[in-house]
């Protein structure tokens, strides 16, 4: 029986790694992967907590998370593909169309 703290530690580690990927990498696909890792960390914590309190909710939550991330990923991948097709962008720094254009000429 693995103690709860161990599982939570692994979950937190996964989450932090994912967050680090999101913050440090610039490629769109890496960002998505980082997000997935963060989700996995959260799902792992949920399963571990469910196991600890002898309930099914943790596993249910994990299944829901999978379904939702799958759906989200579908949309996100289409957006990434469109970004490449329209703007030839694979890197997040190329997508700066929402920058406040008036920042230069404002007094």
């Amino acid at each position: 029986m693995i103690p709860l703290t161990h599982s939570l530690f692994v979950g937190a580690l996964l989450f932090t790694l994912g967050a680090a990927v999101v913050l440090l990498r610039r490629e769109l696909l890496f960002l998505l992967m980082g997000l997935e890792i963060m989700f996995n960390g959260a799902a792992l914590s949920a399963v571990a907590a469910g196991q600890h309190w002898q309930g099914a909710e943790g596993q249910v939550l994990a299944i829901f998370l999978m379904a939702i991330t799958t759906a989200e990923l579908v949309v996100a991948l289409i957006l990434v593909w469109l970004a490449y097709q329209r703007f030839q962008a694979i890197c997040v720094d190329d997508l700066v169309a929402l920058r406040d254009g008036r920042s230069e000429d404002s007094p």
Partner: protein
Amino acid sequence: MSTWLWLIPGSPFVGALTIALLGGRLPAARLPWFACAAAGISALTVAAAWLGGAAQEPLRQTLYIWLAVDGWQPSVGFTLDRLALVMVTVVSGVGFLIHVYSVAFMDKEAEQRRYYFYMNLFLAGMLVLVLADNLLLLYFGWEMVGLCSFALIGFWYRDPVKAAAGRKAFTVTRIGDTALAIAIFLLFVQFGTLSFDVLFPLGEGDWEGATAVALLILVGALGKSAQLPLQVWLPDAMAGPSPVSALIHAATMVTAGVYLIARTHPLFELAPGVQWTVAAIGVLTIVYGASCALAQHDIKRVLAYSTVSQIGYMFLALGCGAYALALFHLATHACFKALLFLSAGTLIHSAGGEHHIGRLGELNAGSRTVQLCFLVGAASLAAVPFFTAGFYSKDAILTAAWVAPVGGLLWLFAALGALLTGVYIFRVYLTVFHRSAEPLLRPRGRLPTPIAVPLLLLAALSLSVGFLEFPEGSGGPHTWSTWLESELDLAKHPEHHTTRVLQALSALMAVAGIALAFPLVRRERAGKSLPWQSFLQTGWRFDALYARLFVQPYHRTASALARWVEQGLIEAGLNGLTRGFWVMAAGLRRGVEFGSVERGLTFLVVGLQRGHAMLSATQNGLLSRYAVSVTTGTLALLGFWLFWPWGG
């Protein structure tokens, strides 16, 4: 039959609406016939009502509840009892004939659409007035006919004299209308209802308000029916087209007052003093109208004063309790006066708008038919014994007047009026039609059919309607008064011998009047005028008196108010106020607007611009930066809640 009752006022009403709204789409030549059809449907419905049993049992129809306030629910409802049946028959029948006459008479007029709109609307209003089953609806019809009368008197409104005549009629009748409105309010306050069915059985108790209400209703009737002292508008009302004078100012609208008093007669019986006043005003008006008619030169004004005088007979009958006889005279008068007006109109028309009887005589404009019709009308008006309708109706009123309180005096006045009637109308007849000199104008050929048919029909009626009611004690049938007995009490007549003597005397009066007309006309041809000519011609100088009593003080008060109150007080006050505001505004502009407000606003704008510049730097579109910000923020908040000693 009851379900079709609405069609009687409804058909001319729909006709009026159609002419007003869609009249431009109808071909102009069809418009008169369309209006005639609307009037004709109404007359046909009345005929159907006669056949459908309205003569036996009252017909009723309630279209809808007009207002519903708690227990008070005046309806748009019609009752066709015998009294109303007489009125609708006269109104729709004469109205239809006059519509037909108008087709030829108004042929050359430019604004026929307006004319027929008001004619149809008038007919609808008048029929609503007589069919109404409550006082409120009656008042609605009352005002509607007043409006149409105003609009039709001033039909040729580009002539300022004619427009002024319309205004005068409207203003003078308004006095009566206001009194009637107050009477309706008082009745409502007392009884809480305005329905005739409920009101008049209730009115039989002892009620001291009856005198006031009866008096107010009387004033209303005086205004509409042009009786002393509110008669001044009717002679001027002749400014309208002749068919209008015939329909509104002779046959129908001016008799609305008679109908109103007949309808509310239980109230007058509670106030015998007021009822006697009705008779007294009636006889005074008879003599007044007849004497004024003697001195007029305008053929239509003669007829107008004659109308005033004849309605006086109806009031006399009402005042003596002889309601059925008042209605009888109303019906015969409608026939012969409409006939006189229409033949006078034809005469004026063919003489190119000439109204003066002397010149009409010189022009010799009348054809044989017109002369015959005018003669029949004049004979009926003068009550030539045995042949004419006027004799049967007027004679009965005279005998009924004898039994009223102070009946001898009433009879004397009325008989004097009868004498004068013969004089004035045959003066006109002889002056216009019996001119020995060579005529200047050859009579034209045949009259147009729409003119000839109504004339001949009305002439036939003027001779025959009288046979419905033979004089008291003559053994002939009394169809009229026995038929109306269930609703209007029978008139009282003096005992047999007195009646005979009175009848003989009044017949003699009529004949003597006609005989007197011959020397009068001869005198006038010789260039001599009547004594008091100008006094009589100006209608006993009532106009001048009213001008001095009411019109001039009113104008003077108005101009004084304009000068002192409006210019001196209100305008000066407003000017001062405006100037004060100007000064205040200038001061505020300098002090507040340029000072604090503008400075504050500038400060705000500059502050906002700086803030915006600072915030704008963070909006750089770089997703990773945003992610860093979100993460940092989240961590900071988490740290704050979890580890800060006084957080969370």
